[in-house]
Every structure is written in C-alpha cells, then in structure tokens.
C-alpha cells in the first residue's frame, strides 16, 4: 500500500520551506543551508542511530505545530526531532540557543587538550570550526584536564583519546560498516573512553572510515601522521577500479606526491552520497595503500568552501600536479637563513616523546588575551594556595 508522502511546512529562522514528513529539524535547516543549519558534532546522516549526544544542535521550538502551537518547554536536539506541520523554529535568531550553544562549546573544550598546533586534524576540525563560530573568547576552566595515553589501534589508525569528544560516530561505523566491532565506549561519565580494553588491533577493510567520521583529531591516519598540514595540500577528486569499494576518493597532493586519501566529503563534512544514493565509504586499500598518483585517474580539483583554510592552498595551472614555487624566498627578500626556527625549542607540546599529561596544565586564556604577564592558575597553584 503506497502511502502518499505528506509534506510539512516548517519555518526556521523566519524562512519557510516544505519538507516530507519524517524530516528532522536539522535536515530541514540544511535544506535551507548556510547559518540556518545548526552545527552537528555527533549526528551523521549516514550513520543510523547517531545524534542527540553533543547538544550543539539544540534549537528553540517556539511553536510545535499548527495543530498544537504551544512552544516546547526545553530546547530540542534538532538532529533527533522531527518537524511537524506548521512548526516554527529558532536557531541563530534565538538568544537562548546562542547562549546555550556557547555553553556546550565550553563544556566540549574544558577537557580538550587544545593541541591544534600538533594535531593532524587542524584545518579540517569540526571542533575548531565550532569554537570559532560559537565559542567564547576564553575558558573559565582552571583545573587539570583529563588525559589518556595515545594508542595505535592497528597499523593504520592512531587513537588519541585525549582529543575525543565522545560523539560515538566511530562506534556506529564499526557496527554498521564492519562485521565485528572490537572497540567501544568503556567506563562512564567523564571517565568514558573509546578503547578496545585490551589493546587489540582494529582490522577490517572499512575501519579507515572511522577517521573520516571523527569530528576531531582523536582518530587519525597513521600513514599521514605529521606528514603535512592539510592546508598545504591540494585536494583533487580521483578514482580507480576497486573490488572492495567504489573507488571514488579525494587525493590530498603536494605536487605529484599523494599524501593521503580520504572519502569525498559533502558541504556538511560528511562522506558524500554517491550517484547510486549510497554513502561513499571507501576501503582501506584505497585509503592506505594507493599512495601513488599512478594508482589513480585524476578527475579534477575538489570543490572546497572558499571560507575553509584548505582553499588557501590554491594551485594554478595543471591541477594538483605541479608543485607551487616555495614562497620562502619571496617572504625573506632573498636572505638565506641557516635555520628558521626549531619548533621543538619553543614548546614541549611539540616534543613527541613528552606525553601531554606531563605538561603543566594549559594556561588560562588571560595569559593570551589579557595581561601578557598574568600567570595562569592551574591545579598546582590551587593546591599550594592561591
């Protein structure tokens, strides 16, 4: 019995659109696009059951529906709330939403290491973007941050739990894309962690997709680790014949050197939907083992939002295949320094052999923003008496 698809009218930030019944507020807002779409750190449209956890996409429903126009008493997770006919929603036009979202960003950051300078995810990190767009200028957290030991889960993936925001996406990938899940969420509360419990390798042809869904730098590609910054690379779309997946990928090149391979992403940072309507997950062979330009048929430059830092690495001419001239000569006006700067001297954060937990607590932001001479409080100060 084919049921006629009902169409609901929903108004988000004063813009009204028609969507099929069963659409979530978030997906309706994405149809409108731009700033009207709430940020989502845990929801992932291609992963069943995801969403509802991070609370960054909370919106205010000022009118539930035409039938029942009462407002909803609390902010709702737009990724898990379906629209009703005549619903009126406020996202960026709601002061309450902006205030609460700022709070959520602060919560997500209080235990985040803020080690962007050494994090491979920097430049394409959703938490970075979220913080810039919705966060406060400085944190009010002054206690020791939670740290975990880095762990290699197999040859291809490194787990940097300290950076994790517990979005659960990688768990859904393992459940829905692989035949056997060996990692999970252990412990509870703020001690929760992603782990295999007994250092097991995650070995599965599709495990690499966990890297693509991770919104932060908690799961990174070991074959790309510290090889380059993403904004120095030029993304190009390419494909190959693959017997495990569809073989449609984005190559991240510098000159003709392929630094890494990822799935193609859409404007929301999710793996692109292919022409057959299926999500474009890629296999580990394509991702980790095909690192030569000759492995691939190049299609052309990947479309990158011009606001993204990645669009800065713009190449001219033969796309992706010609190394741009080194800008160093130009900026140094012909001087030839022996050594520019040894970054390892500047901060212990850059010394790989020093674990983050051994570093002193991150400085309170007033060290950076206010008085440059002010000393930040950390837990050690508290113990000894402020």
């Amino acid at each position: 019995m084919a049921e006629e698809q009902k169409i609901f009218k929903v108004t988000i930030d004063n813009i009204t659109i028609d969507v099929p019944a069963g659409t979530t507020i978030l997906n309706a807002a994405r149809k409108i696009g731009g700033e009207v779409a709430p940020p989502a750190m845990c929801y992932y449209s291609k992963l069943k059951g995801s969403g509802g956890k991070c609370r960054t996409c909370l919106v205010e429903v000022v009118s539930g529906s035409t039938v029942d126009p009462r407002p909803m008493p609390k902010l709702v997770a737009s990724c898990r709330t379906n629209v009703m006919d005549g619903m009126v929603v406020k996202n960026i036009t709601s002061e309450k939403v902006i205030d609460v979202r700022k709070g959520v960003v602060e919560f997500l950051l209080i235990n985040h290491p803020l080690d962007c300078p050494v994090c491979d995810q920097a430049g394409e990190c959703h938490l970075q973007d979220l913080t810039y767009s919705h966060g406060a200028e400085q944190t009010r957290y002054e206690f020791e941050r939670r740290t975990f030991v880095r762990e290699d889960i197999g040859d291809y993936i490194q787990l940097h739990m300290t950076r994790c925001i517990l979005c659960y996406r990688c768990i859904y990938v393992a459940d829905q894309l692989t035949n056997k899940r060996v990692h999970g969420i252990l412990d509870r509360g703020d001690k929760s962690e992603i782990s295999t419990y007994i250092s097991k390798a995650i070995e599965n042809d599709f495990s690499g997709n966990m890297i693509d869904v991770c919104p932060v730098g908690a799961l990174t590609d070991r074959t790309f680790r510290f090889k380059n910054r993403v904004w120095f690379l030029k993304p190009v779309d390419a494909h190959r014949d693959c017997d495990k997946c569809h073989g449609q990928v984005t190559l991240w090149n510098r000159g003709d050197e392929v630094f890494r391979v990822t799935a193609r992403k859409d404007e929301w940072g999710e793996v692109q939907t292919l022409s057959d309507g299926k999500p474009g997950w890629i296999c580990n062979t394509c991702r980790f083992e095909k690192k030569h330009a000759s492995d691939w048929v190049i299609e052309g430059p990947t479309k990158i939002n011009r606001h993204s830092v990645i669009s800065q690495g713009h190449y001219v001419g033969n796309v992706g295949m010609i190394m741009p001239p080194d800008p160093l000569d130009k900026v140094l006006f012909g001087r030839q320094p022996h050594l520019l700067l040894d970054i390892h001297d500047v901060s212990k954060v850059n010394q790989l052999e020093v674990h983050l937990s051994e570093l002193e607590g991150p400085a309170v932001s007033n060290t950076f923003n206010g008085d440059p001479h002010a000393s930040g409080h950390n837990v050690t100060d508290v113990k000894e008496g402020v």
Partner: protein
Amino acid sequence: MSKKILLEKANVENIQTMEVYRREGGYRSLEKALKMAPNDIVEEVKRSGLRGRGGAGFPTGLKWSFLAKPEGVERYLVCNADESEPGTFKDRYLMEFLPHLLIEGMIVSSFAVGSNVSYIYIRGEYEWVTDILDAAIDEARKAGFLGKNILGSGFDCEIYIHRGAGAYICGEETGLLESLEGKRGLPRIKPPFPAVKGLWDCPTVVNNVETIASVVSIINEGGDAYARIGVGKSTGTKLISACGNINKPGVYEIDMTISVEEFIYSDEYCGGIANGKKLKACVPGGSSVPILPASLLLTTAKGEKRLMNYESLSDGGFATGSMMGSGGFEVLDEDQCIVRHTLSLARFYHHESCGQCSPCREGTGWMEKILQKIEHGKGEMKDIDLLWDIQRKIEGNTICPLGEAAAWPVAAAIRHFRDEFEWHILNPKECLVRNYGLGKYAEALITS
C-alpha cells in the same frame, strides 16, 4: 494517625510468607481484577488520581492509557526498583517487609496493561531483597497466581527479577530499559517514549515499586475511595523515607494532609531534631530537589503552613519552594555545612553521570571541582557565579533528567545559602573546621 494503605500489615509476623499474607487478605485484588476488563482497571486507576511515586509524579492511569497496542506485538510492564536517589529507601522497605504486596500489584498491573512477561529491575546492591522477592514469586507461582491461565482467567503472566549492578542512571526509565537489555544504562533520546517503543522496541510501561503496590488498594477499595484520601491532586498515601539529623529516621506512610512541621516534630513521625539541635534546612524529596532553609520549609512564602504534598511542597516554584519528588526527606541540623553537603551531592551526580551528552558529562565534574575548591578554603568569589552559570547551562539541555537533578541542588544551595558560600571564601581557614553552620537559618519551633 494517618490512614495506612501500604504499610498497614508491615508489622504482622511472617507477612512475607504467602500463608500469612493470604490470611491477612492478600491477593484479593487479583481475584477481583481478573474478573474486570483490563480497560476498567486502567479507568479505576485514573479515577484514583494515583501519581507516579518514583519522583516525577505523573498520573499513573494516564501513563497506562498511553500504551500503544499494535496487533501481534508484546507489551511489557517493568517495575522500577532501582531506588538510588539519595535520601530514598522506601521501596526497599516495602519489598523487604511486604514482598507479596508488590507481586500482587505487579500481576494486577500486568493484567491491566496486557503484559504476559513482566520484570522487576532491582538495584544490584539489594541482593538480599532480591532473594525475598524471588521467594515470594515462587510462592505466587505455586499458588497459581503466576504462570498459565491464572485462576482460570485465561491470562498468562510471568514475573522475573533483573538485578542491576550499580548505576543511578538506571533509575531513569529508558536507561533502565537499556540496562535490562544487557547494555550500558544510557538513557534514550525521546521521542519515541517507552509507551510506544520500550523494552526490545515493544510498548512498555515502567512504574515505581510504590506505585505498583498502591494499585492493590485501588482495586480492592475502588479508585474513588483512594481519591478521597489526601488533598487536591495529592491523593492516597505516600511513603516518606526520613533521614538525617532527626530522632526517628525511617519509612513513614502519610496521607498528604499533614504539615511539614508536624512530620518533623511529632513523635508519630520524625520525633524532632536529634540531640536537641535546631532545624537548619531540609531536602524534602530526594537529593535532586531544591534544599530549603527552615523558614521556607515550614511555611510557604505566603506565610501559610507548608503541607507534605505535591502542591504545597512545590508552592512558590523554585524561588521559594521545592518538590515532593521521591519522598526522600533529609533533615539537616544547625551544625551542618551547606557547602559540604552540596559538594557531596555534586560528587554523587558527577559519579553517576553516564557520560553520553556533553553538558552533564563535563558540567557535573566541573561543578564538583569548584565545590571542592571552595570547601577546601581555596574558593574565590567569582566561583559562586561560575557555579550558577554552569548549573544553568546544564539544566534543560541534557538527554535525560540527570542534568536537572545535578543542577538543582547546586542552584538551590546558592539561592538560599549564598552567604554561607561567601563565608567559606572569606574565611578560608575557619571553613576547614568541620560542622560549620550559620545559626541564623536555624529556627526553634514548638510543635503545635
């Protein structure tokens, strides 16, 4: 003397056994209910005005009537015996002393909602209570009150006990259902509600122990008779577990017309404040509800006597009132330190947060750390405002009510006892000495 419905027979010797329980009139409600139409039982419970005794106070009959009844899909009744709200120990008392009352209520309720397999989810620490209930279930099965074709009615029912393993969050009904499915007790995102998609995705009703036990009397005496007890929308009787600095801690059954003052000071109930001390503050409905100073506890902001019922305890909203909650009534005397007490509750919620959503996972720990700092004489004035802001950003923004449960105690403590926090910060050395209390909150009162 309040009329007793639940605990009337609690002191009868060997009431835990089927023989004595039957002799005292047990299982009459089952015989009566099986001759009724299930919907009539639901109507009877609606008429009684019974409200959920777990803490939220939602009308039970209404909850039952929301249950979806798709063809060919099992429905489940689950009893929430995961009593873990600090200050609350009434369900344990009920199960320990009157196990058959719960089993009788379970069978009647199962019949009403159409559940052929029902579960009692009991907190893991109550292991000996589990044994008592197991024995009662065995006896009920032998007596033909459980199993196939109960008393020739054609109704089949089994009850199983499922032990938790130490997680407050499993008292939240969807966290409980996850736990019952053998998973981590992470509350589900609603909708869908359990009435539509509950245990194993089937329509499910989750009710508290005391709620289910109350059904027995409603069937025996009728919903109208039950509704005549109490006042307004606070019908029937309520179990209050009283603890803290009182002379007679314990579980009391009250009809909801008595005043808070009478409850604390009369010899029938708490018997006054222990050791001749004065009353300072009280958390009247389990640790999540707002703490009130003595003055606002005994009289409302309007100057009326505050009564032990849903409406009166919440009179004035959170500005000057609190909540009935689960009936966990904790009394603090003049020596008790509000900062320390708030810290202990903040630590509790931090420990019990499931970690699924960010405001609760990160916010509860942060609040505990700040309270530790203040308690240990390292606080700064800005910390009080920071605490206020953190609790405000948790409240209402989490997946489940644990966010509110963690936020409210902190908010109420600052709202009513802000100067005690300030005193701690201004007197970092003295505050390390225990049992500090600002005397001005304590008021001597004479029982009327």
